[in-house]
């Protein structure tokens, strides 16, 4: 039995290209369509794609304890980032990086008029494990793959540290540390593995396991999405009109993310992009433009040289 891979954004309406020129344009733009690297199948000797697993992070439940950040560092043996004081509320790690795969964003939101109580925005950020992920597209060594849980995984014995994925990611997730604690690192790109090593043993990822308020929920993404929609509905019923889902259905150029969030404010307040681009769309056209200009200039050079032969 062949498992069907999820088609990104299957419900999105197809726009009919206008006319013959439109068709050529479309074909050029999609010269290199998004591609999954080989995903294991159920009959590949027991490592088949079982179910797509993911995270649902509910910021309304987050208390900012950073247990997830610590658990992630401990399980994955990630080094400390140093004792830095940023002055940004209780957040001293600033961002996700090659050595921080869970990052708790802290923000104290005070009312604009200065009246009444303020509120906390807290979000445990993580790799979004996009379907159609730009890091996976960009990886020139094939080190970044979709694993049997449908998540984006960097195979560090293949990674050669080129850093393309770091520039490709529109969420700023991947990192390549030059130095950690004054020591040179292995020079590879690193990010959340969604605890693949725990998952193969049937265990919950370290961050979700350690979360004391069930702000981080782990499970089959389809179940998580249903639960998340119900949660938003419940919150709306209770009068919290601000709650909405980020990345549950689609965000920017992307279809559903495998790690999605329930937010209460503008995405930029949590350092999430509003409408992240998929930079690999339309690369065929850009190749065509680049080769056309090169070929045109070369052809003109040939004409000039040939003209010399006739008249000279």
């Amino acid at each position, binding site marked *: 039995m062949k498992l069907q891979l999820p088609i990104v*954004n299957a419900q999105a309406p197809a726009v009919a290209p206008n006319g013959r020129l439109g068709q050529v344009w479309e074909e050029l733009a999609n010269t290199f369509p998004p591609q999954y690297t080989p995903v294991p199948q159920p009959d590949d000797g027991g490592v088949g794609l079982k179910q797509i697993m993911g995270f649902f992070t509910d910021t309304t439940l987050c208390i900012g304890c950073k247990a997830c950040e610590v658990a992630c560092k401990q399980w994955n043996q990630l080094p400390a980032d140093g004792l830095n004081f940023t002055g940004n509320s209780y957040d001293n790690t600033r961002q996700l990086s090659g050595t921080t795969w869970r990052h708790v964003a802290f923000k104290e939101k005070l009312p604009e008029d200065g009246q009444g109580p303020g509120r906390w925005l807290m979000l445990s950020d993580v790799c979004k494990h996009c379907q159609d992920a730009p890091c996976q597209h960009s990886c*020139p060594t094939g080190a970044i793959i979709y694993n049997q849980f449908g998540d984006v995984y960097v195979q560090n014995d293949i990674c050669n540290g080129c850093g393309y994925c770091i520039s490709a990611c529109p969420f700023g997730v991947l990192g390549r540390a030059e130095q950690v604690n004054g020591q040179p690192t292995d020079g590879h790109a690193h990010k959340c593995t969604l605890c693949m090593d725990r998952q193969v043993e049937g265990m919950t990822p370290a961050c979700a396991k350690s979360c004391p308020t069930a702000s981080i929920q782990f499970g089959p993404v389809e179940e998580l999405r249903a639960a998340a929609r119900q949660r938003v509905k419940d919150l709306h019923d209770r009068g919290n009109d601000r709650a909405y889902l980020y990345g549950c259905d689609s965000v920017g150029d992307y279809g559903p993310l495998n790690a999605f969030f329930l937010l209460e404010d503008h995405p930029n307040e949590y350092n999430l992009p509003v409408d992240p681009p998929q930079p690999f769309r339309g690369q065929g056209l*850009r190749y065509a433009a*680049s080769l056309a200009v090169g070929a045109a200039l070369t052809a003109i050079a040939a004409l000039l040289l*040939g003209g010399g032969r006739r008249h000279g």
Partner: protein
Amino acid sequence: MAEGTRDVPYQAEWTPNLRHRPDPNRVNGPAVPARTIAPARRPTLPEAPYPQPTTTSPQPSYYDLSILKAPVWKWQIASYFFCGGLSAGAYALSRMAERAGDEKYRDLSRMGAYLALAALIPCPPLLIADLGDPKRFHHMLRVWKPGTPMNLGTWSIVAYSGMATYEVVRQYLQDRSDRIGSAQRGRLLKLMNNGVLLAIHDAAGVPFALMVAGYTGVLLSCTSNPLWCKNPWLGPLFSASALSTGAEAISLALDCTAEGGQPQSPSHSILRKVDTLAHLTEIGCLAGFLRFAGDKARPLRQGSQSKYHHLSLRAMIAAELLKLVPFGGALRKPIRMLSSALGLAAGFALRWSMVHSGRDAAEDPHAARLVSQPREG
């Protein structure tokens, strides 16, 4: 080490726990053929439930930190872009001189072939030096993945370096043809000059050269970096710059060597015209680039790299102006050399500013927000 402290093993060398353990679930090689999925159409955005920022309210942001990570590419990559482009441009011009031109452009085709290989030789060390893990540079060559410009470019440059080497060997044998002692060398030259072989060589070599010239721009445009993201002008810009730097390098090399000693080689006037045309294309592409990037190009125009950006433009204009001034006699050659050198400097400054200001752009929180602002369509 102070009394009572313990040596933490991972401080010596950072090894994530997945590194040394053979992973039983490693997906390796083409066990299952890659499958293609239909590219997603842009979905219609639902009404955002959060308050939309207005011009009067402060921009929502997270402590004004950038969303994006800065690219890790440094001077090695900028230099590689320059050398690779120069090599490809010189190669294409050299082949055209032999194919379309006649014996009086022999100096052009000869010098172009030698320069193409000379500029190509530093490329692999530069690329390997840039990798975080230089031991594993060959991992690029373990897969064929044309969907990523870096992999396609690596394969192109491998193929192209073969063509460039062939060309240099052929030129060398031809240069020494009057003095060839051994019969084997003569036979080799005859084989290499075989019409069919040469036709195949050019049919593959010139497209590969154009690929090497332009893929670097496409590579940059396939990132989420505010400055480069999806910019269709980057590839053409780098292609045109490759042709212009190639022409300038050949012209300069001809002037520096004995053959160029004659003040007016016919090759010079051709190179001059090609160079001017390429410069005009470059300026057009740069204008298109800046227009497309809009506010996101501010790190290039006003950031730490702005001096190189402006240097590139000024050097290009100065090189063109020098060509227009009718110098005669003894001044003619030095002025031509100066113009070529200025053009080469412009090409280098262009790559340098473009690669390095990517870092500024990614670290600029405003630019990083702009690249992921909702767009129409």
